[in-house]
């Protein structure tokens, strides 16, 4: 996903002299390294200094450039939080802040590197758009959108590297502010976003094996959220399942439940997310997710699919 972002950024950047990237001492992956070589002036490394990474992006945008800030998710959003809020959101500047490794991707690095509340924090900010693609293909589309939009600040939440492509034959294209049906069914609707979509696909398989017809939705456009589309989904299906790699507070699971209540929908809603807890656990990404209860088997059991 990270590499796809880099490829697209390079492609767009070579033709758009206003596109630039500001990193805070993070090794640029793949094509970003090439971008640095080919366009050294439009690649800025502030060093280990995230506050000025955001501050400089704001200043660059105010003077007409189109900057991206790029580092590990916690350091793109948490460390320079007030700079994100005041400089980018309050002034409503079209700057994309790219967070690598949202959720608990950095599974051996401990709590300081887990962006487990990033969705809640980023969506709480007025003017901020939050986009979390689920695979390299979706990352490509949304990166193009980020590089050309003029609406305001965006938190682009990416995984790491090596995610499988899941959306190549999706039923619908990605559209900003809209839910995206990847497959369309009638009984159960599974909504997810980000790399954990992989588990949504696995749970969908279990439902299909149990003879149910399944819709899969990518909610890559986390904010603005497609309330209308969600309500339509709640009305169309008997069961809605939300699977997300984020803390419960501020999760889409809660949002969908609220929407269901307001709309008087009778659809049953189950949601799965990270625990509201600092887990002092280590291991690979799947092992960390399992520690939080986000394991396909456990989800299937909770949904009565055994």
């Amino acid at each position: 996903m990270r590499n796809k972002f880099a490829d697209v950024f390079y492609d767009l950047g070579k033709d758009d002299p206003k596109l630039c990237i500001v990193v805070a001492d993070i090794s640029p992956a793949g094509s970003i390294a090439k971008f640095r070589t080919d366009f050294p002036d439009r690649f800025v490394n502030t060093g280990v200094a995230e506050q000025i990474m955001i501050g400089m992006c704001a200043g660059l945008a105010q003077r007409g450039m189109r900057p991206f800030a790029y580092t590990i998710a916690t350091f793109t959003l948490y460390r320079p939080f007030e700079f994100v809020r005041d400089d980018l959101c309050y002034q409503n500047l079209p700057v994309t802040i790219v967070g690598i490794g949202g959720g608990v991707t950095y599974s051996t690095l401990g709590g300081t590197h887990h962006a487990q509340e990033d969705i809640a924090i980023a969506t709480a900010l007025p003017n901020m758009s939050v986009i979390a693609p689920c695979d390299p293909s979706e990352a490509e589309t949304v990166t193009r959108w980020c590089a050309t939009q003029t609406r305001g600040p965006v938190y682009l939440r990416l995984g790491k590297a090596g995610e499988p492509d899941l959306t190549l034959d999706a039923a619908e294209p990605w559209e900003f502010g809209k839910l995206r049906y990847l497959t369309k069914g009638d009984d159960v609707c599974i909504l997810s976003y980000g790399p954990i979509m992989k588990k949504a696909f696995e749970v969908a398989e279990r439902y299909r094996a149990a003879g149910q017809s399944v819709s899969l939705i990518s909610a890559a456009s986390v904010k603005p959220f497609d309330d209308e589309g969600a309500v339509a989904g709640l009305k169309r299906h008997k069961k809605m399942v939300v699977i997300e790699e984020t803390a419960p507070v501020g999760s889409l699971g809660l949002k969908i439940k609220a929407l269901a209540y307001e709309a008087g929908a009778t659809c049953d809603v189950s949601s799965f997310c990270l625990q509201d807890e600092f887990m002092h656990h280590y291991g690979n990404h799947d092992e960390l997710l399992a520690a939080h209860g986000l394991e396909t088997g456990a989800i299937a059991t909770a949904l009565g699919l055994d």
Partner: protein
Amino acid sequence: MSETLSNVFDAGAARRRCLTYRRRILDISQQVGALHIAPAFSCTEIVDVVYNGLMRWDGEDTPDVILMSKGHGCMIQYVILEEKGILLREDLDLYCKPGGRLGAHPDYGVPGISASTGSLGHGMGLATGMAYGERLQDRDGQIYLVLSDGECQEGSTWEGAMMAGNLALENLIAFVDLNDFSGLERMSEGHPAFHPVIDKFLSFGWEGVEVNGHSADEIHEAVMNREGGKPLVVVSKTVKGKGVSYMEHVPIWHYRAPSPEEYKQACDELVEISA
């Protein structure tokens, strides 16, 4: 407990310890890929001097604190804590694995670990608070802070340094692991205004000294010979990846684990090390 610090420091013993520590870290690199070897090899002598030459020990207890602000260098701390019996072999066997309690960054609550670091630039504020806390309670705990040069790019490091200077915190002793590399590049090339770093500390009211950061006795002597009355910074010139030729000054070793062949070569090289 040794109440007064000894001026006698056995440099030969320190050299032998540091070789053993480096080899132990290499061993662990063969059981799990997630570790920062070069950052640990860069500050091996600094951390050794703090544990074995400066901190006062009564069995496993100490009134002093070592705070690894460059949390990603914690592997060196783990192997020293293992040697001291504060961590167990089993802890290191389960490093970064399910069921284990040691991750790639130090975690407060683990025996011997004074703060959860890993996000750079937190140590100076924490250490300033700890040092002032000692003063407020009429205790003489010495706070030894290990900083990377990279995190001296964070504004928060300098906010803390200014405050420590304001409070004249004599019991705060900071070591800058000045290997001239941050994660991405040589700082002298990418960020020339960063140097000389010692001047910045001096201007904030610190006492400062520059040493060879791979000479344990030079580091020890610098602390012994301080004037006092102010926080002390020991700016320690180091080599990232020190001791293994192919790791020295090569950025990828910031995070990479050696292959079995590379491991063997590293072990062969780690029989002698010059300061």
